[in-house]
């Protein structure tokens, strides 16, 4: 049986070295580029006809637009409009990355902690910068609990700061762990199909098929959760409580 973790290996396609810095084009890079191309094609091709009464593809493109637009509006309000393109790109990038990764033999770049962490840290830093730009030093009041005796601040402010700092960590671990666990499980079950042969192979096959369906749900859900939390964090920064 093949090592179920082998699917996560990074394999260079073209070595690119900038000084000491490794910027090789790898299987991960290829699937990132593929994801960008897929999202772009999906939106550009389906909106090509700009029909007032949309066809199936155009409906899906509009649905994705309105889904994210509603998410931003519900969680951030009208001030969130400016960040809509970013949130939309984030959602589509993760969603398509997750979905394309479900294709057999495809690579899932969201199953790498460094990728999810980078995205989470961008959201985290962006939100923090927005918070300070909008509220200046008052944004620090975010860490001071209200209605509590100042003596407790010694304990509570570090907890609040840790809680704030844990945001990108939980954001990235959740996505990474879900994608990695799902793909590992799929691989494990798929690996049982051939050794068990015709007699016993159907059981892991059925399991793998059922899991694949479940993974579709998870692929969407994790993209949604990542984006919705980005919106909630943004809301905290925009509307300081």
């Amino acid at each position: 049986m093949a090592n179920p973790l082998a699917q996560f290996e990074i394999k260079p396609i073209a070595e690119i070295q900038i000084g000491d810095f490794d910027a090789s084009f790898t299987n991960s890079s290829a699937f990132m580029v593929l994801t960008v191309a897929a999202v772009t094609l999906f939106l550009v091709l389906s909106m090509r006809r700009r029909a007032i009464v949309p066809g199936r593809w155009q409906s899906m493109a509009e649905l994705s637009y309105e889904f994210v637009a509603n998410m931003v509006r519900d969680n951030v309000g009208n001030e969130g409009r400016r960040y809509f393109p970013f949130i939309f790109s984030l959602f589509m990038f993760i969603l398509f990355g997750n979905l394309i990764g479900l294709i057999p033999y495809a690579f899932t770049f969201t199953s790498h902690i460094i990728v999810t962490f980078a995205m989470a840290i961008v959201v985290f830093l962006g939100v923090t910068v927005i918070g300070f730009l909008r509220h200046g030093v008052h944004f620090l009041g975010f860490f001071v609990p209200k209605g509590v005796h100042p003596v407790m601040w010694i304990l509570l402010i570090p907890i609040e700061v840790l809680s704030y700092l844990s945001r990108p960590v939980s954001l990235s671990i959740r996505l990474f762990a879900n994608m990695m666990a799902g793909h590992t499980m799929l691989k494990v079950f798929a690996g049982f199909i051939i050794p068990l042969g015709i007699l016993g192979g159907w059981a892991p096959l059925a399991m793998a098929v059922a899991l694949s369906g479940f993974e579709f749900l998870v692929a969407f859900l994790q993209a949604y959760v990542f984006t919705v939390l980005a919106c909630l964090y943004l809301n905290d920064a925009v509307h300081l409580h």
Partner: protein
Amino acid sequence: MSDEKPPLSLDELDARLRKAKAEQHQHEPDGPRGGASMSGFGMAFRIGTELVAALLVGVGFGLVLDGWLDTAPWFLVVFFFLGAGAGILNVYRAANRMGTAPRLIGDQTPDGDGKGPAEKG
């Protein structure tokens, strides 16, 4: 001589127009509606990681500070508990946003960020 009322379909049309307009105005933009409508699945996955992430950050801080100041294991111990507190706070807030958190004493609005119960950590 015809003596009928105005055709009934006009009233029907009126009702349908009213309905269509009401539907249109449902989508009017407004402020944030507070709690995110997240599915139970998503929340279940979310809560687990919130706790672990805060704990990881706490432990990481502790290890780094101990390494710098050569105080092992004191900062690790302190930040482990602070991280656990932050984790519980995270979980409480995540649950609060779902609207399923138990009402704690001195808690504010249901969609408030629940700063009050932080002393539990």
